[in-house]
């Protein structure tokens, strides 16, 4: 059951050729590997490859087919590209000229909204200020546009990745 995976810009097909206990013979892209992999804790794997001992932690991303893979020294974004993903990505392409949404990368509390619905904003204008852990962060508009929707109000507590403000870009052809 081969599958395509993506890390950074690179996509590679992954296929298990053989398995004996924790020993796998795998083809990744065009390369053959013999890897010893075993799950040691919830989401944590011990990998032995060419004698080297590596610990990897799989943290589920925002969707069920993406991971942040953590090693002792680094972390990488990995996506599994299944039929569903391909479909969604194709669909997304159709809509690409649509709205821009500002969302919070972290949980926090809305300090101030600097715009109103229907207001015009220039690229780089501060739209909203969110506070978390005694620090205030300003979120700026990435485009010239018009405020289409505001999802929150001052003093709201928001989760990570929650949409805050939607901006309809102005096309200046």
């Amino acid at each position, binding site marked *: 059951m081969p599958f395509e995976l993506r890390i950074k810009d690179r996509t590679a097909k992954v296929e298990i050729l053989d398995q004996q206990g924790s020993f796998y013979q795998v083809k990744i892209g065009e390369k053959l590997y013999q890897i010893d*992999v075993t*799950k040691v804790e919830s989401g944590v794997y011990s990998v032995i490859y060419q004698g080297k001992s590596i610990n990897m932690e799989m943290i589920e991303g925002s969707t069920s087919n993406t*991971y942040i893979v953590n090693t002792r020294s680094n972390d990488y974004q990995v996506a599994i590209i299944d039929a*569903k993903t391909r479909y969604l990505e194709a669909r997304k392409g159709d809509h690409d000229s649509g709205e821009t949404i500002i969302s919070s990368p972290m949980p926090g509390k809305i300090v101030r909204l600097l715009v109103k619905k229907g207001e015009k904003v220039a690229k780089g204008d501060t739209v909203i200020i969110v506070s978390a852990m005694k620090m205030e962060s300003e979120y700026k508009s990435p485009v010239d546009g018009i405020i289409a929707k505001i999802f929150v109000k001052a003093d709201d507590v928001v989760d990570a990745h929650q949409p805050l403000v939607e901006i309809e870009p102005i096309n200046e052809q």
Partner: protein
Amino acid sequence: MIKKVLVANRGEIAVRIMRSCREMDIASVAVYSSADRKSQHVRYANEAYYIGPSPSKESYLNIEKLIEVAKLSGADAIHPGYGFLSENAEFARRVIEAGIRFIGPTPEAITAMGDKVTARKIMIEAGVSVVPGTNENLDTDEALQRVAREIGYPLMIKASAGGGGKGMRLVRSEKELVASYNMAKSEARTAFGNDTVYIEKYIESPHHIEFQVLADQRGNTIHLFERECSVQRRHQKVVEETPSPLMTPELRAKMGEQAVAAARSVDYVGAGTVEFLVDDDHNFYFLEMNARLQVEHPITERVTGVDLVKQQILIADGQVLKIKQEALNQFGHAIECRIYAEDPDNNFMPSPGLIKHITEPLGLGVRTDGYVYEGYEIPIYYDPMISKLIVWALTREEAIQRMKRALFEYKITGVKTSIPFLKRIMDTPDFVSGKYNTHFIENNEDYLMSRNDCNQECEDLAMFVAYLDYLEKLSSVNMNKEVETNEASSWKEYARRRNVIRF
């Protein structure tokens, strides 16, 4: 003897104080806000009481409520920790009026040290060196030039009512002096409605070095040597160590003496810290005194062997300091790294959230003071510090190696942390050689930038393990429900086949 201590704080410092209480057979009382019901300090304490909603001003800063809980629980002393109400003279006064011991200095000492101009005056009177400068308004260009020449260039012109960099002007030579002076005055007038400015010597590449002091109620005052705190980002300390690589026995003796004099000048009681700016020529200047326990107190504990919280409690209990200055020694070298929930690769953006997994470093010479645990959600309302990692070794070189080993072992997932950034600091030549000052981080941006060391092979392994985890997810019931394509059945087929291969 004090029997029950209310800890008017949260997070790692609350747990750290309760640890010492437990070792003294003193009961500890936790207080908590709505966001903190599941916090470690609530779980660690002997008793715990709710004090209000999550925002600090409605809970941890609510003096009324804290005193009410202290009375209700029968606590005979209150430890304020650091931050929150720890340097609030009003709080100290109210606690004492309620007949409860305040584990800290007198309200008068807090007040004196809290106001920078007052503190500076007291220090001058006590013979403590302050940054050379003047408070008088200089009327003529001649007077200005004469005073500036006395102080020496470069110098700073500061607005007396100023703050936050406003009304400040750096002057490098006499020819800029008059123009800068007039601009500073005009800026001060506009900003604060008060054009009083004063001149201070500008310390070019200062070291931030502080001295720990302890003083009992009878006036016995000692110092427990220095802490080097020059690794700072936006005036926030990141790494501290002791001894300071800059220090000499002579300088230590002189600074220690002045630190003790500074504490004595305000009849200081308890544990406090005298902060100095030090230049490369070993000139040092009083900066301020922190009338409380510092975040970085553990490195002092490690090289002297003294439990500072226990000393605070004994002093508050009225006991005489048993530690003599001449009996104190710095044994070996200690370094502390502060672990923050923040993303060093994204402008140090705070990163609150759920701790999915945590592995603390252990073994020889390693101490961790933290409060989070697996499944704990770091709240958005308070400081992003997760823990402090303290290592000790016989030499500075070994201590750095040990810190690298400890950072390698430290694994926290679910939130972003400053651990990768701290690892890079330990590898930076200026840090390794001990030749650094408060400009360390800006001077070493190249070394401190994130480097991706994953080659294609390492990427391939990451993809494969993600693939395996995904397969496992797919074969679980819930996942099959989600994948509503005809792939689902072939997955089940595959899962079956995989089991066959496996055995």
